[in-house]
């Protein structure tokens, strides 16, 4: 296992939230290691009922094991909190199901290092790479694109992407406040509320390797209402748009 606190390569941490991903996690960790070999990898295990934790450790990742299931937002925020406490400058989140191609990590990192923004979204639509998106999800993305446009004051192509990189400023914010369920869209509004900026870079997305998405057709309606309400609440707290 890699050293828990790697002092020499502290700038970037790759964060992988995972829940019941024993079939995919080792492959994802392996791909990340081969893409950015010196970079620490932190798998945040959201109290999986399978052997995700063990598989991640065997593959060479450090594991932050949550004592009970918090959901995606709580899981990601735990990783952000640890990364912030350990002094990392950049954190790139890659999903544990293998949908995000880790070969795009350098692209996301490069955009972060340019310093024009606090958050980088790996988008499947910048270069029309969204072939693996289901019809239902594609419809949802179109809806949220239209809804977010006036709120953010600019278009966002892939608002539901979890392939996200943040710098230390955004890390400080998200460590303190982060949406707990279905966090991607609300996080954009939180970011905007604090007058932070984001950019989108093209990233490759693939079908998940194993398991099923947490957002099933039945949950979609709940998802829409939940996200809409979360966005509305964040808009009420609006602090002004960055010039």
């Amino acid at each position: 296992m890699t050293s828990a606190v790697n002092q020499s390569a502290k700038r970037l941490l790759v964060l992988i939230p995972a829940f019941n991903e024993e079939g995919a996690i080792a492959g994802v960790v392996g791909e990340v290691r081969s893409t950015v070999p010196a970079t620490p990898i932190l798998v945040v295990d959201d109290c999986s009922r399978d052997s995700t934790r063990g598989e991640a450790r065997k593959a060479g990742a450090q594991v932050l094991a949550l004592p009970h299931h918090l959901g995606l937002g709580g899981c990601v925020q735990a990783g952000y909190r640890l990364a912030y406490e350990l002094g990392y400058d950049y954190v790139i989140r890659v999903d544990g199901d293998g949908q995000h191609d880790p070969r795009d990590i350098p692209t996301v990192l490069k955009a972060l290092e340019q310093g024009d923004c606090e958050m980088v979204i790996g988008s499947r639509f910048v270069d029309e790479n969204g072939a693996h998106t289901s019809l239902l999800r594609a419809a949802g993305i179109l809806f949220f694109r239209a809804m977010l446009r006036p709120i953010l004051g600019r278009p966002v192509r892939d608002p539901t992407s979890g392939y996200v990189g943040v710098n230390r400023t955004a890390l400080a914010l998200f460590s303190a406040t982060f949406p707990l369920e279905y966090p991607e869209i609300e996080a954009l509004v939180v970011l905007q509320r604090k007058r932070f900026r984001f950019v989108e870079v093209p990233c490759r997305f693939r079908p998940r390797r194993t398991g099923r998405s947490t957002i099933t057709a039945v949950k979609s309606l709940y998802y829409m209402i939940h996200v809409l309400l979360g966005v509305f609440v964040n808009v009420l707290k609006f602090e002004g748009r960055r010039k």
Partner: protein
Amino acid sequence: MDRLFDVVAVFSLVLIVWVLSSVRRAHIRVEYSVSWLLAGTVLLILARWRTLDDWMAAALGISDSFIALAMIAGAAFLVVLYRLSLRISGLKDSSITLAQQVAILEFRLDALSEKRNIQ
């Protein structure tokens, strides 16, 4: 109609006794029992004091005093439920923060142990 008022009075009494019994057995904390006891007591008073019901029905513009009682009871229970939702939200936030802190502390302890073993 009188029977309906009697049913409400019995229901209120059962609620009060049930809550007091739960407090005695430490199944419910005193601070959470207050809202229920208050709601039960108000309901009991309204179920027994018909003049008050008639006056409230007239004030609300409702011809039937039992409907006025039902509306007031419904509103009281909604307030209690909303207060509990606030409490639950606060507790969930605390529980999430606590779980994250526990995980981070365990992570740091493991890192320290690993460091010691290497030395």
